[in-house]
């Protein structure tokens, strides 16, 4: 069952088209990796999927009961966050922002969900630690727990392993796959790491100012573009 459909969408800035012909569907439980070089339109598509940017043509529709505000987003870290005084608990709880609705403060149910996701990420012992004192891998786990507080259906991860050492990156990939398999949460991940992408993802979307490939990871390995990008190891 499709939960997100992108129909021939294009995006432009100041009348200049930066990405066109994006046409794919994401089913519940899918794990989609968006790959492509820098400036290929990956970030633009992410903004489009989050409805932070409207497509210039075509359309993006959510179905299967998924709402715009219920996508668990893990953005790239900003400069501000690195020295931001916040406890792990405060950051994770802020993931429940979309369930506030008309309420002013977080409910007991929100707190319970935040606790649950701390445990899920194995960081419950860091609950009262300062976010700025954590290692890069721990910080990404905190942000993933926050994203999980915001969603029950779809995670959108923008280069979640950038800047992590290989061990922490591997752990992060495993955690994401675990959430995908055990909880049935669909995943869309932007990544530079093409080898890890084909290893973990069910589907690949390859962008280069337009859609170059969309299909299963297995088909991608066999495709001409996939073989070229995987640098021979896929042959």
């Amino acid at each position, binding site marked *: 069952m499709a939960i997100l459909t992108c129909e021939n969408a294009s995006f432009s800035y100041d009348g200049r088209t930066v990405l066109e012909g994006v046409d794919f569907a994401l089913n519940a439980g899918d794990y989609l990796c968006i790959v492509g070089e820098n400036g290929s339109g990956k970030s633009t598509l992410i903004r489009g999927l989050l409805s932070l940017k409207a497509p210039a043509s075509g359309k993006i529709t959510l179905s299967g009961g998924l709402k715009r*505000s219920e996508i668990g987003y893990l953005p790239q870290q900003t400069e501000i966050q690195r020295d931001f005084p916040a406890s792990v608990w*405060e950051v994770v709880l802020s993931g429940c*922002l979309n369930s506030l609705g008309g309420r002013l403060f977080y409910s007991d149910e929100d707190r319970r969900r935040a606790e649950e996701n701390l445990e899920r990420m194995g960081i419950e012992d860091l609950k*009262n*630690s300062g976010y700025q004192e954590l290692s890069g891998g721990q910080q990404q786990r905190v942000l993933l727990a926050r994203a999980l507080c915001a969603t029950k259906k779809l995670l959108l991860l923008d280069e979640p392993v950038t800047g992590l050492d290989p061990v922490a990156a591997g752990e992060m990939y495993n955690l994401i796959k675990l959430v995908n398999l055990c909880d049935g949460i669909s995943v869309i991940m932007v990544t530079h790491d093409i080898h890890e992408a084909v290893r973990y993802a069910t589907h690949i979307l390859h962008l280069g100012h337009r859609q170059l490939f969309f299909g299963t990871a297995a088909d991608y390995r066999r495709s001409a573009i996939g073989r070229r990008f995987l640098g021979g190891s896929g042959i």
Partner: protein
Amino acid sequence: MSGLLSMFSYHFMQRALIVGVLVSLCAALLGVSLVLKRYSMIGDGLSHVGFGALAVASAFHLAPLGVAVPVVVLAAILLLRLRGNAKVKGDAAIALISSSALAIGVIVVSVTSGMNTEVTSYLFGSILSLSRGDAVLSAILSLAVLLLFILFYPRLFAVTFDETFARATGTRAEFYNTLLAVLTAVTVVLGMRMMGALLISSLIIFPALSAMRLCRSFRAVVLCAAAISVVCFVFGMAASYVFETPSGASVVAADLIVFAFCSLLGRKG
């Protein structure tokens, strides 16, 4: 000691202390978000706009707060809009607006009344400048700022920590940024009568920076900044009364001492 206590027997001192404590609280709470969002200079820019507005108001014999509050609120909204503009960068926009407002203020003052003590009190602050009506209005406005900050606390935290995430979850980040700017504008105008246009921004920045040296969670920083701000204000005022130093400058000096102390303490801890 009795000399110090005698300062509470003057009505103008009581007014100044009540309003000052409330404004210090507002400034400290907002300051944490402003410093973290790299908006520190907005407070400084707005105080210059406030000076221009007060100068014009006094030249035309208008109610000072009645003119300054709306003008500075508008300037705050304009500054936020300009931040998103690629043509004029944020810090340049602030410098542009604040120096223009200062220039207009200086011209209006020199054409009308000349550089008198009233103008000096706008620049460097005076606890005598607060009338009874001003004090009541200041108290009401600062209570409103405090209330809004507390009510929107979860959302303000989310927007401060990660604006993109907040937007993605359907929060109107633009609205909360504007709210922050408007509340700051009101606080700056209320505080500048006492602290002076040139010194009010320190009331916003110092407590937040001091608290960040000591605390690791957002809530602790906010509470600590509020406490530091109020304590520094009261001590600054007391020092100003005992040593007959200018009130605004004395409060800033107290803030500076606490900041130095916190920096030392934070390094050890």
